[in-house]
């Protein structure tokens, strides 16, 4: 048994909204309902549940169990993954590991958060002691310092970054689930002229906090075949790195764990970046997309801007980028937000892309970013390569 013996066989997603009127468990129920309808699985066949972190669930130390109880799932494997925005992609790898270990057979990976409507999070981190007294705003300030460092080292090409923002926005216009407020076209000039938040981070660099849910169903390819499921996104390669450079007092923030995660995922898959038909990177800030292009081997470290200028990132282009709009143009569903780009990748591999369907639906690369450490870039980097079958 190995990672590639398992596949995502179904997906579901709610609309992304500015503030949810319905309870987070009702969003979870919508995902379960959608996946059962799409795959033909019975509820009783789901014997594993893995949840992402959730700001709404954060006050509940029994989050996965109580959610399972609300959804009336009887399980052999039940847990929450708490590696921040990396949790949704990380959950898929953990589902495969649990299936391979014989702990369960069919896992619902459920990502639901209503962080805007009900945030119960109370972070216990370095923050109160070492950053909050300085008026540090968290992620935007961290990315402000990171961007300044990148600027001083390599130069920061605003128009290249703007091109990424525009491509994602074009995709959100074609995505009915994207947050309605964001479904307006933008230009590179709009990006460059948007107001500074944490100089040099602009408004149009940032995600907008939203509410919503998504999820996927993971099972063995053998079981999928037995059930006659023709559409599968096979788990071809996965890599994860938390706290790159943990034993160093100073690290270069333009170097991230995606280098290690990507190398491992590509080696496992026997593929290279040239094989990737669509790219679905975790996008909390626009510059994170460029840094991932560099770290995952699409281009050389520090030369992301040149690569961006010569690449067409539209769904119809050479390297379709976050074809649902990404979190930046579809809205960030709190700590469940990493599921948005994952579900979009699966949708593309299944050929359900509709008005934004990519041409090459063989291989997709999805990533995660999770957690903001003290004065570095991010805690966890993940990379997952999916291959369509059927």
């Amino acid at each position, binding site marked *: 048994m190995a990672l590639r013996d398992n596949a995502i066989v179904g997906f579901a997603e709610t609309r992304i909204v500015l503030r949810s009127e319905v309870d987070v468990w009702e969003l979870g129920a919508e995902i379960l309902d959608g996946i059962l309808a799409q795959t033909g699985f019975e509820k009783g066949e789901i014997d594993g549940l893995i949840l992402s972190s959730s700001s709404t669930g954060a006050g509940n130390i029994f989050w996965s169990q109580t959610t399972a109880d609300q959804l009336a799932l009887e399980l052999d494997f039940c847990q929450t993954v708490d590696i921040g925005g990396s949790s949704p992609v990380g959950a898929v790898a953990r589902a495969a590991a649990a299936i391979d270990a014989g702990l369960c057979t069919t896992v619902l990976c459920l990502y639901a958060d209503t962080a805007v409507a009900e945030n119960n999070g109370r972070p216990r981190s370095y923050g109160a*002691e070492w950053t909050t*007294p300085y*008026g540090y705003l968290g992620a935007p300030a961290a990315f402000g*310092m990171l961007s300044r460092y990148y600027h001083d080292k390599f130069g920061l090409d605003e128009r290249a970054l703007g091109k990424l923002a525009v491509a994602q926005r074009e995709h959100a216009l074609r995505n009915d689930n994207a947050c309605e407020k964001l479904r307006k076209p933008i230009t590179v000039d709009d990006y460059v002229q948007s107001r500074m*938040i944490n*100089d040099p981070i602009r408004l149009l660099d940032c995600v907008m906090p939203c509410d919503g849910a998504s999820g996927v169903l993971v099972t063995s390819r053998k079981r999928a075949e037995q059930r006659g499921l023709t559409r599968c996104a096979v788990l071809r390669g996965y890599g994860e790195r938390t706290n790159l450079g943990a034993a160093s007092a100073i690290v270069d923030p333009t170097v991230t764990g995606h280098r290690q995660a990507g190398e491992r995922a590509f080696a496992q898959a026997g593929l290279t970046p040239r094989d990737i038909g669509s790219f679905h990177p975790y996008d909390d800030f626009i510059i994170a997309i460029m840094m991932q292009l560099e770290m995952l081997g699409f281009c050389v470290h520090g030369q992301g801007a040149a690569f961006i200028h010569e690449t067409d990132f539209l769904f119809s282009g050479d390297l379709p980028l976050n074809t649902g709009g990404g979190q930046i143009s579809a809205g960030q569903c709190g700590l469940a937000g990493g599921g948005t780009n994952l579900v979009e990748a699966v949708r593309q591999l299944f050929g359900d892309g509709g008005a934004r369907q990519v041409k090459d639906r063989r291989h997709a690369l999805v990533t995660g970013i999770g957690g903001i450490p003290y004065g570095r870039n991010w805690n966890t980097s993940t990379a997952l390569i999916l291959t369509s079958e059927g």
Partner: protein
Amino acid sequence: MAALNDLLDIERPLPPERSFSRPFWEATREKKLLIQYDSVARAYQFYPRPTSIYTGRRANLEWREVSGRGTIFSYTIVRRARPPFRDREPYVVAMVTLEEGVNVMSNIIRCSEDALKTGLAVKPYWHPLPDGRHLLLFEPA
């Protein structure tokens, strides 16, 4: 170009201290900067941790007083903040590399936007907190 604010007159959220960071905070009462040093790895670390980031062993970790002089590693100009910092923008949040080879997050004060740049030499400015401790800020050296 708007002047950068020094934020010396606002009430900042009081930093809590942990069992393993208390020596740092106690030293700030006398405007002294203590940081952790691993005598086996022969290297400093910041922020204070419950163990050595180099070896995971605690016995060789000691506190050493340092000058606090350093250079700006990177910075951001905050133009949109939350209370009590709201309406006091713009101000600077920076990482400063101390001479001992660690990075410290703080504010850069008494510095114009024109003078602000990566690599700028800075020295400590101890800002009093209501409980007798001091907050380590930096100003151009």
